[in-house]
């Protein structure tokens, strides 16, 4: 696009406006103006998109920091209570948690799935160590409509801490059933079925 017009003839004659000079001063056509504005809009869009993208990345960084903290808390909860403590003192199979809210982290949920881990060979006559389970802890949230995930995999022995046994003994009313807030009837059935296979 070129700027057209005779810049030398911008002065007015002593007698007023000269029609000759006016006719020789070409201006932008409507098409040129619209094209120019269109190009400006496209340029501005591209430029602002860059800013917006950077800003969104920056905003997402805090959420990811929060998600990392949430994951740490979920991992601590899993390490403490993945395995239900059964009424007879035995330890049940790992429980699964699916998209439970995490207090203090609105918009984030956590899950855990566990599967049997590597089996250790035991020499005859030796006491078998606790079974190992591979637990995958996941924190999910959404940023601008897109799902985000942060996860960590742990290898946990099928054991229960002494502290938790103590709490179960001293505060039976508040005794935790494991990770689930309220165990369903199915869960209780499952516990009953598996109690015979507990670790102790």
């Amino acid at each position, binding site marked *: 696009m070129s700027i057209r017009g005779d810049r030398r003839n911008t002065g007015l004659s002593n007698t007023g406006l000269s029609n000759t000079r006016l006719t020789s001063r070409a201006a932008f056509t409507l098409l040129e*103006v619209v094209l120019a504005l269109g190009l400006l*809009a496209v340029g*501005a869009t591209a430029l602002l998109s860059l800013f917006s993208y950077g*800003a969104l990345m920056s905003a997402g960084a805090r959420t990811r920091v929060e998600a990392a903290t949430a994951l*740490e808390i979920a991992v601590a909860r899993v390490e403490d209570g993945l395995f239900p403590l059964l009424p007879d003192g035995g330890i049940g199979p790992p429980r699964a948690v699916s998209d439970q809210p995490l207090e*203090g982290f609105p918009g984030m949920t956590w899950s855990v799935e566990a599967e049997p881990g590597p089996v250790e060979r035991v020499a005859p006559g030796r006491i078998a160590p606790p079974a190992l389970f591979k637990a995958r802890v996941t924190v999910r949230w959404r940023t601008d409509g897109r799902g985000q995930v942060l996860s960590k995999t742990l290898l946990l022995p099928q054991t229960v801490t002494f*502290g938790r046994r103590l709490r179960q003994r001293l*505060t039976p009313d508040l*005794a935790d059933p494991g*990770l689930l807030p309220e165990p369903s009837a199915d869960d209780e059935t499952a516990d009953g079925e598996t109690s015979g296979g507990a670790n102790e």
Partner: protein
Amino acid sequence: MAALNRGARGLTLIELVLALGLFALLTVGVVQLIDGSLTVIDRAGTERELMLAEGSALEWLEADFASLAGGDAADLVAGWLRMDVDGDGIAGRTVPLVRLVRRASPRDLERLGGLESVVDTDNPDLDARRLLERVGRAPLVEVLYGLQPSLTGKPSEGAAGRRGDLQLVRAERLEQGPGRSFFDVPLAKAGTLLEDVLLSGEGDVLAERVLRFEVQFAGELTSLERGWNPGTQLGESLRQWDARGLSRVDPELSDWNARSAALPATPGPPVLPRRVRIELELEPERVHRRRPRLAESAEIDAERLRFGRAERLPEAGTALLIGEEWVELLGAADDEGWAAVARAQRGTQRTLLRFGTPVQWGSPAVREVRLATAREEWRR
């Protein structure tokens, strides 16, 4: 004039209208784009500001709790007191004061000037870590956390913040025995203690515009599998802690100081929590500059409040601090600025809300620390 009209052919009316219409459309598009971008950039700036401010303060707290001294040297006292934050003569905000003892790292010793106590003059080239190893155990550091009203010109000249804002103060000093200990000061004198440490240079302001700073503890008997439920019964988490059972947390100062059944009632060896939960909520600069205010006074039993500049309010579900009471915004404000709220949230009580009281909110950040001294290794 006839010559002029003949020679200069201008735009026709239709062309002019078309041009103006196109220009208007493009302008609207560009303005919307800029507005959207500025909103995103503004939001990102707020998030970044909070991440830096809350993150740095929480890192200090995490590091201090994670390196709590164990054994006979251990000590931790956390209690609550009511403080007059807005200068109206009524102590209406419940704020914590946390004091703890941690092991000094070489970096702590350098910062606090305690390296002389462990320097081996025969081997001045030994670095601090090897010096500490040689001494056998690191000296102890007392650390103090508390909230201090930000009053113009007091206690530290030029302190940021308006009257009614709170600052998170952290102070530390090498343990020097009775008479020079943070633990010697009664909980009721927390305000004086914080002013003293700021004036003496032992204290630093970790964060400005603190809306909420809460600490909860989980003891050996606290069940956390269903979340943190503060209370005084066995199994519930604790808001207060006195590691030595010396009655240093006065229950008269706040309901949150009520003694928990999970803590020893008589003096004895130090007992530390197994986990600590820290919540910190700061007011972003953007909210601070553009605080809405109450457009009408509200009685104690009012369930709807009228806000000025209601378009600045956050989304429904956000907790708002109005004066010394937390409320939850239940929905968007109507055209006249009225909005439904749930009163007396987060452990605060209903108060008379006066016309013109600023409305504040933030974005809470949470950390949980598992204490190394209380790690449960015994499993079966």
